[in-house]
């Protein structure tokens, strides 16, 4: 009982300490709450994403292997399945389906709004047991002419659950519902490495419907295979490849494993990469809170120095004396924990919403993660106690006689103010005081500085990431629109001769001003062991509409040449003059292609950040064995016509697969990244709020500690405004220093993210590092303006200083 009473005394005492510093305690608890809450929410993201993705891929029975005939090539329905049967791998196959996957143009215009984008028809057996569809409104198409519309696209344009679409060739179809499909959990367009729901529409139809819509009755060009658990995927793949080569000797094909599917790869890679990024910010936030806690506890312990000394003189063991500051820390930690729960739950709800917006999946597991919360809570509890350990240890190691002394012998050290000894700065002693004070309490200065540094690091890295994406997309857009901002690209359904009917129809259209034909081939560049998938486009000798920019070298006039992106050259480790093997399709018949390998010299580097864009010239096309073929036309609208006019006129023409703005890929990426911007913007806002809390905390401690100095100044007639100005100048100095360090650290974090995380999650984007003046502005506002303004929060207290009492305080 007596023992309990003794403990209760320490607790009561510590509660009084907390009450005395209630505003600081509350501000640090709030800081910790923000840190713990954000840590919990941010750390839960990857768990949710991986859980949701696992469940969603399993629920829709995603394929393990996909065999696709080279673009333009088809086989008779049943031939691919025959190859599978002949492969001898059927025992390992749980399900397989032949499909027809063909490009198209989709007109989803509704209610006076024009929505015309390139797209794809995916035809598969309605009763298949692989790559099934999940309805997100309406129902799956049963038969006849009905189709289903990919949900991400429909959601982007807020299309109704059911409706009508016009496909290439003017075919009108009804869609009975919106669906999610595992291959399109993240929508990718040909040539674009990631999300393209705003510019690419996928239509799902029963196989017979798709064949009819594509004008390829009885034809297929794709087979998806789901393996039984425990099957050797590599062995099965080889068996089927061998069988396909035998069954379709004239037709090239590519194999894509489940892990290589863009949607699959991106979901997991992205989750992993984003988590690394979020972890950094979560830890920075917790770090900022810890530095602030350290400051307050140091100050409290310092203020208790004499009391600790008296305790030691009375024989109280140091461990017992340490209880009081530790109990204060525990209260801060508990406050942080309590505040962390609503912050965490709110952040959870918000991030869950962002997640659902960003990656709508059929199964979403965004449950509260108790383990992650406990981890954050443990950190939130331990960090303040660790912060207390250093000053407490220092205090209880002092000899009692030193601790209890007052007057001259207790005079505070001048810290690092000696560094300015003999240095005469402009202005009087008052003007010099802020800098001296900054140096006088180096430990606190450093802790405050680190807190501000952490915040500014978050601001610069996060906002810099947005800037870098923007700069990258601007560079890409600028490159795509060189020469004409209205340039469009028209994709033909099949490669045709340069004097073909489709080409003539396009260039002869009323709304088209000029046209420039080219051939775009999905190819692979190989140099040594490095391989890179690219969209290789031929650039004709006559280039009235557009030609790529040359950063170095060029496409020569008479001999074959290859122009690749700077980032592609880096990835392949090649330079001008190096020879690269190009694996590309070559037509072997009206519907068949085979893959061939041709070596071309790298003759130029272009500056577009889109790594997958590669170009060759007319001589190059000849070397590739595809001279005179065309499947794309760059056009500019005629005078008085708009891009929409061109789309409206060309879409119904036969043989047209798609018409889109030349920067459509960039715009698609831009749309997707805007969703991610939300997370960055909110994090930056929270960081700015944390800066204010850190600065307030530091200022309040200073005001508390310097009461006597301020009273002395008032006794000398120094006005309150002048003293406040000094406090602001001091905060400004720390803020400026913290901001400077934070900007450097932010650049380092940004650079690390851009060179490690982003290339893994967005390999096709040669990201350009950029930090705009606006970001520096936000950093200056968070780290300097907010911090410098914080002393104003103590103005009332300064004005109410008890002069007489403060001047006689014996510390």
């Amino acid at each position: 009982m007596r023992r309990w009473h003794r403990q209760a005394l320490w607790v009561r005492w510590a509660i009084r300490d907390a009450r005395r510093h209630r505003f600081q305690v509350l501000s640090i608890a709030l800081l910790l709450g923000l840190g713990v809450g954000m840590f919990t929410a941010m750390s839960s993201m990857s768990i949710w994403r991986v859980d949701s993705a696992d469940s969603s891929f399993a629920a829709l029975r995603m394929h393990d292997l996909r065999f696709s005939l080279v673009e333009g090539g088809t086989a008779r329905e049943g031939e691919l399945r025959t190859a599978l049967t002949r492969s001898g791998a059927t025992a390992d196959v749980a399900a397989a389906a032949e499909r027809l996957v063909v490009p198209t143009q989709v007109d989803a215009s509704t209610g006076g709004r024009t929505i015309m984008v390139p797209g794809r028809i995916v035809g598969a057996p309605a009763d298949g047991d692989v790559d099934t569809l999940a309805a997100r409104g309406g129902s799956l198409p049963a038969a006849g002419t009905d189709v289903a519309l990919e949900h991400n696209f429909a959601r982007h344009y807020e299309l109704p659950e059911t409706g009508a679409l016009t496909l290439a060739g003017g075919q009108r179809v009804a869609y009975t519902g919106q669906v999610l499909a595992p291959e399109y959990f993240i929508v990718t367009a040909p040539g674009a490495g990631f999300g393209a729901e705003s510019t690419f529409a996928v239509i799902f139809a029963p196989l017979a419907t798709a064949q009819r819509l594509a004008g390829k009755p009885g034809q297929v060009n794709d087979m998806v295979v789901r393996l039984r658990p425990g099957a050797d995927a590599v062995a099965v793949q080889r068996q089927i490849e061998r069988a396909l080569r035998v069954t379709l000797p004239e037709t090239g094909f590519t194999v894509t494993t489940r892990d290589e599917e863009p949607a699959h790869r991106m979901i997991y890679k992205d989750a992993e990469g984003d988590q690394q990024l979020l972890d950094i910010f979560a830890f920075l936030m917790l770090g900022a809170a810890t530095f602030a806690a350290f400051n307050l506890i140091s100050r409290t312990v310092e203020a208790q120095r004499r009391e600790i000394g008296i305790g030691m003189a009375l024989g109280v063991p140091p461990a017992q004396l340490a209880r009081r500051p530790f109990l204060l820390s525990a209260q801060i930690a508990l406050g942080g924990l309590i505040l962390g729960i609503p912050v965490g739950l709110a952040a959870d709800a918000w991030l869950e919403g962002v997640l659902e917006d960003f990656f709508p999946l059929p199964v979403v597991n965004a449950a509260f993660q108790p383990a992650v919360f406990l981890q954050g809570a443990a950190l939130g509890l331990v960090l303040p106690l660790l912060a207390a350990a250093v000053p407490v240890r220092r205090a209880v190691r002092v000899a009692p006689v030193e601790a209890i002394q007052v007057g001259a012998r207790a005079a505070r050290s001048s810290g690092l103010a000696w560094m300015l000894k003999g240095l005469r700065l402009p202005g009087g002693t008052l003007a010099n005081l802020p800098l001296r004070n900054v140096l006088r309490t180096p430990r606190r200065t450093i802790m405050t500085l680190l807190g501000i540094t952490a915040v500014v690091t978050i601001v610069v890295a996060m906002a810099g990431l947005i800037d870098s994406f923007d700069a990258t997309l601007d560079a890409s857009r600028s490159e795509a629109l060189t020469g004409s901002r209205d340039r469009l690209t028209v994709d033909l359904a099949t490669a045709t001769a340069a004097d073909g009917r489709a080409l003539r129809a396009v260039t002869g259209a009323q709304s088209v001003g000029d046209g420039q034909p080219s051939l775009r081939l999905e190819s692979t560049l190989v140099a040594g062991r490095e391989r890179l998938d690219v969209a290789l486009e031929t650039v004709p000798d006559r280039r009235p509409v557009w030609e790529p920019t040359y950063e170095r070298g060029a496409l020569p006039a008479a001999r074959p040449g290859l122009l690749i992106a700077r980032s592609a050259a880096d990835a392949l480790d090649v330079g001008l003059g190096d020879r690269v093997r190009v694996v590309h399709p070559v037509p072997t018949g009206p519907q068949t292609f085979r893959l061939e390998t041709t070596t071309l010299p790298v003759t130029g580097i272009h500056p577009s950040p889109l790594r997958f864009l590669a170009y060759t010239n007319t001589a190059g096309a000849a070397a590739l064995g595809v001279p005179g073929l065309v499947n794309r036309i760059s056009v500019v609208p005629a005078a008085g016509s708009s891009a929409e006019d061109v789309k409206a006129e060309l879409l119904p023409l036969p043989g047209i697969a798609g018409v889109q703005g030349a920067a459509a890929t960039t715009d698609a990426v831009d749309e997707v990244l805007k969703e991610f911007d939300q997370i960055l913007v909110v994090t930056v806002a929270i960081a700015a709020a944390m800066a204010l809390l850190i600065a307030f905390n530091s200022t309040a401690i200073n005001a508390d500690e310097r009461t006597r100095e301020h009273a002395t100044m008032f006794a000398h007639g120094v006005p309150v405004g002048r003293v406040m100005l000094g406090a602001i100048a001091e905060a400004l100095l720390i803020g400026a220093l913290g901001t400077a360090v934070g900007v450097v650290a932010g650049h380092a974090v940004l650079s690390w993210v851009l060179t490690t995380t982003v290339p893994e999650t967005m390999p096709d984007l040669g990201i350009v590092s950029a930090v705009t003046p606006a970001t520096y502005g936000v950093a200056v506002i968070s780290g300097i303006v907010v911090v410098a303004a914080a002393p104003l929060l103590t103005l009332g207290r300064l004005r109410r200083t008890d002069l007489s009492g403060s001047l006689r305080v014996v510390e």
Partner: protein
Amino acid sequence: MPLPDARPVTPAPATDKVLIRLEQVGRRYHVGDSEVVALADVSLEVRPEELVVVLGPSGSGKTTLLNMIGALDSPTEGRVVVAGQDITHASRKELFAFRRHGVSFVFQTFNLFPALTALENAEFGADVAERPDPRTVAVEMLERVGLGDRLGHFPHELSGGEQQRVGIARALASGNPILLADEPTGELDFQTGVQILELLHAHAHTGRAVVIVTHNREIARIADRVVEISSGRVVRVGPPEEGQVEISDLRW
């Protein structure tokens, strides 16, 4: 000790110029429901070149009296005129200006700025009083208090006596006509205390007035006049009761 019925009469020295005039000054505080009378009916005049010691036990109101003169506190009754300025009802701004140019303080706990050197602390006094060439003034004052060789030292590098001498140099550097010292030797040993008193005594005879607050009856023996306070009232004003002595003859 019974309080005198009659208000004590302040004997005025030879000069007619009055630097400090308190007329029936009183100060009451409210603590919870009760009222505390810190000062009551105090009248006092101090002239240039006078060294006045306000003597009294702890809680007698002597510091409150000093605060009234120094414009750190305002009376609830009576009138305070210092250096020709009626500060009884002065605005906050006027009080700040008055403290810059009218009075200077020496504190028991020195109250030096830890981040400033001895020279800079003294310079601060000249700075805020807007004296020309504050650095030269500060050097001169520090040399006068015997710290010419400690100019670049920070407070924590100085002994208690040295710190108090810096405090005095800071007060002198302001050049203000009135110096108010609150228990200036309270934190010091005897020898150092004597040195401090010598400095204050010397300063009083340069045309300024010095008011020292102390509870030490021995120190009061160096005063030209002693104002004894008890329970907020002046109980005696006059030369030291035990007789005036030279500073060198002090013992405590």
